């Protein structure tokens, strides 16, 4: 226990002395002797009071402004001329105080109001500031833990079980190049000494583009391999630790952001900065071209397009430098490499996978049969690896109504459940084209979003993670508006009881280039502010929400009945049960006819 200090606190502001008084309370609680002067005493009176006892530190609280600096400088001089500086240190705190300003005014230390009190305590007690003291302590938890995964709607549950059973049985008898490559990749990871031999088989299963990368180092599209020295930049990167949560009440959702700048080093840097601002996790956005090509690259691959190429090396790099307290998700919800992504996810201990055969095939361009085969492989990896996977419902963005979107999502959930995995529902909070056409969101953005999610929750007891990102289609080309709409949707996510939400930066709706960190921070601050504002209060939808819930439930029912009638999930996907061209859904072509019986 350090010795107790004798402290004089001087609220030098004519009005605002709350800040310094709060600091005084903390100091007193630590056992120090604290004398707080009345606010707004003239300088000479402050000097006189400072003479009256032997103080270790004099803490002065003052909001900065142009004329204020002169006054404070004069007070510092007077305290020195009174012989007090030799005995005690002078500390300045208040709005707009920086160490530079404190130095100019002659103080020994300066603390802005955002300083955590730990820093002030450390200074007063003469202890070196432990970087971790006062830092936010996060603990990752299993967001699926408190959910039973029981069907709450008997009839719909039965239909889903039928579809899931059929799909699982079917998948056990088939394989694909993606699955074969995934198995080879798994072997290479588990047995690195034999990698060369196994790789030869792997390459044979790749498209020419990727095979060329392995055989001759031929460049792949707009990618390049980063040098070791570029990657080592991360060793020198130091970012301030977070000191405050985004959430204000415990039930406020976790906040996850997207990374995927194209450069893995940049992604790590962005994540470290976002960590410092209090986000809870990161989703790695991978490129769309990778979904259409058989085979994955290796190395520290960077590219000048949307998304960061997923390679084992890139994932390992991110795992190495990202705060382990952050959730880290790798997506494998579409594409010909779905199975192999899941191998990496399992191998590197990723926190969440992402698989949705319905969205991935009807809106992501992958052939339905192929994606169901590979997707189930991924779900098995998730079950084995003990990590949950989510199913994004971004189908709605193409115009597909939530009923069909969620039917597809629920089939994936049912399958995952059956395979022993723990799926997470990820409905999109958005201003959907369907709602634009049919008017459900003319009055407000709350009722329809709320109602549709209640439909989901009335069918399956599973966690909801609002995505992705929240507020999709409500962002305009304006930073303030963008940040605001995201923040409001964050409140909506809380209202529906979501465990987490994904948010976008203020750049994302119109960025014609890379997303800058400052734009992310705009949104992060807005979310934090919204949560602080709402706290334990709530958003209440109108009675329309219940109507929407019932209607969406019915639509889900119909879509599932359709699929059962057509003979199963895969057939249902091809034959429009989960959406057809009229609502922007179309079975993808990548990987068509590549599934074969084992």
């Amino acid at each position: 226990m350090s010795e107790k200090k004798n402290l004089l606190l001087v609220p030098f502001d004519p009005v605002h002395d709350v800040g310094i008084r709060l600091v005084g309370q903390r100091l007193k609680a630590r056992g120090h002797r604290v004398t707080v002067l009345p606010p707004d005493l003239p300088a000479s009176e402050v000097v006189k009071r400072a003479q009256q006892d032997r103080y270790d530190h004099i803490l002065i609280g003052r909001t900065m402004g142009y004329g204020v600096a002169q006054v404070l400088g004069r007070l510092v001089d007077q305290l020195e001329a009174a012989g007090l500086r030799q005995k005690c240190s002078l500390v300045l705190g208040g709005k707009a105080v920086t160490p530079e300003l404190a130095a100019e005014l002659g103080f020994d230390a300066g603390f802005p109001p955002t300083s955590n009190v730990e820093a002030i305590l450390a200074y007063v007690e003469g202890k070196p500031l432990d970087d971790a003291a006062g830092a936010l302590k996060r603990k990752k938890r299993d967001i699926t833990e408190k959910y039973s995964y029981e069907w709450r709607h008997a009839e719909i549950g039965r239909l889903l079980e039928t579809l899931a059973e059929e799909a699982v049985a079917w998948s056990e008898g088939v394989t694909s190049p993606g699955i074969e490559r995934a198995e080879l990749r798994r072997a290479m990871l588990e047995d690195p000494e034999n990698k060369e031999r196994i790789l030869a088989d792997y390459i044979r299963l790749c498209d020419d583009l990727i095979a060329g990368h392995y055989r001759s180092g031929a460049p792949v599209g707009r990618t390049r391999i980063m040098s070791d020295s570029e990657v080592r930049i991360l060793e020198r990167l130091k970012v301030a630790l977070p000191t405050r949560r985004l959430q204000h009440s415990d039930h406020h959702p976790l906040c996850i952001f997207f990374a995927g700048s194209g450069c893995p080093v940049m992604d790590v840097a962005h994540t470290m900065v976002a960590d410092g601002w209090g986000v809870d996790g990161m989703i790695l956005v991978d490129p769309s071209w990778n979904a259409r090509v058989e085979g994955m690259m290796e190395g520290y691959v960077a590219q000048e397009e949307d998304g960061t190429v997923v390679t084992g090396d890139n994932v390992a790099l991110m795992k190495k430098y990202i705060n382990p307290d952050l959730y880290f998700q790798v997506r494998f919800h579409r594409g010909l490499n779905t199975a192999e992504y899941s191998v990496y996810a399992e191998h590197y201990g990723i926190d969440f996978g992402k698989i949705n055969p319905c969205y991935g095939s009807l809106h992501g361009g992958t052939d339905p049969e192929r994606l169901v085969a590979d997707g189930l492989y991924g779900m098995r990896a998730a079950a084995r690896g003990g990590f949950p996977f989510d199913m994004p419902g971004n189908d709605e963005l193409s115009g597909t109504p939530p009923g069909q979107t969620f039917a597809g999502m629920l089939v994936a959930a049912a399958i995952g459940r059956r395979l022993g995995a723990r799926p997470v529902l990820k409905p999109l909070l958005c201003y959907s084209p369907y709602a634009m056409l049919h008017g459900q969101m003319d009055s407000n953005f709350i009722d329809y979003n709320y109602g549709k999610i209640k439909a989901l929750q009335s069918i399956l007891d599973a966690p909801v993670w609002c995505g992705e990102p929240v507020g999709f289609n409500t962002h305009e080309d304006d930073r303030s508006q963008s940040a605001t709409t995201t923040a409001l949707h964050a409140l909506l996510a809380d209202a529906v009881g979501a465990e987490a939400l994904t948010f976008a930066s203020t750049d994302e709706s119109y960025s014609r280039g890379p997303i800058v960190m400052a734009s992310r921070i705009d949104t992060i601050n807005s979310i934090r502010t919204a949560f602080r504002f709402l706290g334990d209060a709530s958003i209440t939808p109108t009675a329309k929400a219940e109507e929407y819930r019932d209607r969406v439930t019915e639509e889900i029912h119909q879509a599932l009945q359709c699929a059962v009638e057509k003979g199963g999930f895969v057939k249902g996907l091809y034959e429009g049960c989960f959406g057809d061209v009229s609502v922007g859904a179309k079975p993808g072509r990548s990987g068509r006819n590549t599934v074969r019986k084992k």
Partner: protein
Amino acid sequence: MTKAIGVVGTAKNTGKTTTLVALVRAIHERGDKTVAVTSIGYDGELVDSLTFLPKPRIELPVGALVATAERCLENARLKGDVLGRTGIETPLGEVLLLRVTTTGRIVVAGPNQRTGLETVRRALAEAGANWILVDGALGRMAPMSAVDGIVISTGAARTTDLNQLAEETKALHAVLSLPQFTDIGPEFPSQPTNIMICGRDNRWIDTGIATLLDPDQAIMVLEQMPAESRAIVFPGLVMTPALQFMQQQLQEHLSEMHFTATNPLVLLLGGEPANVHSTLKAILEQDAGIGVLQPLPLLAVTINPFYPRRHRAGAFASAYIDKDALREKISAAVPIPVVDVVTDGAKPVLSAIELS
């Protein structure tokens, strides 16, 4: 012998750093003296930390010495050899000593109080500095009791009212010109902490009171004052109203008494220069003497017509008063060189320093 000169501003943006930079350049051009730079605040930043208007950067030539806080080295453009550490802590880290090897710009943040400045001065002298320039900060001056002479930078940023500015400059000059009081006697403590009174028997009484802050403290001092005291020494802050009170109480008893401050700064910090000056004059009128133990002469005044004009809440724009009118007014107020370093260069200031 090392000479330390403090560049003190009467307010922020009066041209202290411009003056300092011009002095550094002039000294360097002469070629025969090693110049050292430090600051009692934080100087050389790109934009003003309060008004966000551009500020001069401190560029130092090869061979110059500088004492600045560790964190200021991180973004320094100049390169130098670290000669040593001073053990003096600031909000920006420990103050280090550097000899410049590649010219460039740097932000200077140095010791914020007199004891620290004394340490830095000694260290710079040991490192070979001939002239040490100490940049002030805002209108702060207390640590400057560790220097040998003062240059004051003043101008429109202090006030755009030229009459007021002239009055103040005159008052500053008067107070900084107070003669040295030498008749202390061997019994006087070398570093008095309290107000000391000397009776006719030449014995010094320690009043136990460190400062003269208000009439209460003045009364406590007066109560201990024997009849026919011949001198009183103020080691610390003297607030002008308290001094006035004392003068009014003593009236004719003041004659043949000597009021002494350890240095002129303890008087100047007690009130507006004009008020300090008039109070001292009132004391002189009673035939009392006024002096200081340690003189701190004002060697030159630099003038700056610039001021930041507030043009809407929180925002400032650059503005200027008539610089010829400024020069005329201030030159008439003081008998020492009045220099606009931008138009006249720093040589006139340098000459004044040399003669001191």
